[in-house]
């Protein structure tokens, strides 16, 4: 990219099953306050020199709050009172995508992305059911889990992937999460624990799945090159970004292959000048709600060939000390709410490049990948390449 956009500030809450002592605005403001404190920024309309956050981009799904225009009610909590605000009804990576485009267009210099979801306030499964089309899939009772079980079966059948290989991703995530103070579900588990856990939707077991309920928020501040250099001496540059949609109806695609992810990744790699992602990327934070997805997504991201996701995880290359560590934070399998999940992937990837990932830090990380998806079985995919 000839123009440059940087991530300059990051704030996350701890992710928990039930923040019963907090209202949605309280949760959002926890993350926002951290990002503001880290950067020393405030909002443009109250900044003495007019240098501050100009726009808020939220990610919110109306159904989770039970009213339309979900972020209208907490606009003063997110600082949008008197500023520009838009909501992206999708994964947090899409809000980051739009923030980058708006800064590149020259329309704004500093934008804050805010993602906030409290799954504990309603039924996530019921809302996921509303994502499916009304006529063909919704009446069958689909939610993300049941659609994922269909995809897992198809993927494992087509490429001979074994449950033990998927379980390795579940184990790795929960163990990595022990080094992440924000993680909801850090666990010392092994493959037998995963394979012995209760079946949810064959072949997905309890420990193959993200926790059933998660609450939390994540805020990211992005800035133009000129503004970024005023704000921080550790800017994390957006080097490449790409997204792609696939068919909604599950019968209109081969669920064993994630073509939309492959295309999204190609677009991001082309922009970032990456030709060999396994070698050129130092750390990846990818959105994995179910263990098989880590294997499948690594194929879509081009870290290995089609059907080779099992071999890749068997090789140890994606472990903390491997060639390309995947999800040092523990990822979604260790607990991140809907939509916040992608924002958290970007935040964690940026923390790695700032050298601020604490005990989950990957040494000498210079290039990182953040991935998010939205829709059943990864219908739409977004890939972001970051560098420092």
């Amino acid at each position: 990219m000839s123009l440059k956009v940087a991530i300059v500030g990051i704030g996350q809450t701890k992710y928990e099953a039930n923040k019963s002592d907090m209202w949605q605005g309280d949760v959002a403001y926890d993350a926002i306050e951290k990002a503001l404190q880290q950067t020393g920024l405030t909002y443009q309309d109250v900044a003495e020199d007019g240098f501050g956050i100009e726009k808020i981009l939220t990610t919110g799904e109306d159904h989770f709050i039970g009213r339309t225009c979900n972020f209208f009610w907490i606009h003063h909590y997110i600082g949008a009172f008197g500023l520009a605000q838009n909501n992206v009804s999708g994964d947090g990576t899409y809000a980051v995508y739009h923030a980058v485009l708006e800064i590149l267009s020259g329309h704004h210099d500093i934008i804050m992305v805010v993602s906030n979801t409290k799954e504990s306030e309603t039924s996530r499964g019921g809302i996921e059911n509303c994502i499916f089309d009304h006529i063909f899939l919704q009446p069958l009772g689909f939610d993300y889990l049941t659609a994922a079980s269909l995809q897992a079966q198809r993927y494992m059948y087509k490429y001979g992937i074994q449950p033990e290989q998927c379980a390795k991703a579940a184990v790795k995530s929960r163990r990595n999460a022990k080094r992440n103070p924000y993680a909801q579900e850090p666990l010392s588990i092994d493959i037998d624990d995963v394979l012995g856990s209760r079946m949810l939707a064959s072949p997905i077991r309890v420990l193959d799945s993200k926790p059933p309920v998660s609450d939390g928020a994540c805020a990211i501040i992005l800035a133009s090159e000129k503004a970024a250099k005023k704000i921080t001496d550790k800017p994390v540059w957006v080097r490449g970004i790409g997204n792609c949609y696939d068919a909604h109806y599950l019968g209109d695609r081969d669920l064993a292959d994630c073509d939309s992810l492959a295309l999204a990744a190609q677009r991001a790699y082309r922009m970032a000048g990456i030709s060999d992602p396994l070698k050129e990327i130092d750390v990846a934070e990818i959105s994995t709600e179910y263990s098989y997805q880590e294997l499948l997504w690594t194929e879509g991201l081009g870290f290995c060939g089609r059907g080779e996701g099992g071999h890749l995880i068997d090789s140890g290359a994606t472990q903390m000390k491997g060639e390309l560590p995947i999800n040092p934070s523990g990822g979604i399998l260790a607990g991140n709410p809907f939509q916040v999940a992608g924002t958290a992937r970007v935040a964690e990837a940026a923390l790695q490049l700032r050298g601020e990932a604490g005990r989950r830090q990957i040494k000498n990380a210079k290039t990182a990948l953040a991935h998010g998806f939205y829709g059943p079985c990864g219908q739409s995919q977004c890939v972001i390449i970051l560098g420092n």
Partner: protein
Amino acid sequence: MEEKTTQEYIRVPHRLTVHWKEPAGAFVNRFFLRMRDKAELWAIKCPKCGAILLPPEIVCGKCKIRIEDKEENWLKLGNRGTLLLAYHVTGSREIDPSTGWHPDGQVFGPLGFIRPDGGNEWTLLVHAMDAEDTKNLHPGMRVEAVWKPRKERTGTMQDIKFWRTVEE
């Protein structure tokens, strides 16, 4: 000694009850009428790439062209087909389609990915299987649609009660 107390948190209950009546659209309307009146499954064929689309759609996603509502573009599919895969949800995390909520302990039957005869790689229907679980459901098995009686058919996908395996 100070007495230990538990913090109490007030939760404010609310619900959203809204009803919709969504037109099925030109092609799905015809599709449902033929299901209701004739117990037949019809798909639409893209005249450019040959994809046989089920559900029938007016735009081919691959070619990005409008598919005309002409009789030669419609294709009657067989009442039998091939099972590509089946899955079954156990436990209490599934959704009751009538309410959108997941009732504790209620168990639904398995669902199957079915390619009705006459379809091609684009033709896949997700529907209920007549089986207690997936033990005896395997990719490649032959299946057939079991329809509700005419007076119970209303023009929805649930006009087919389920698909059952058949020996051929």
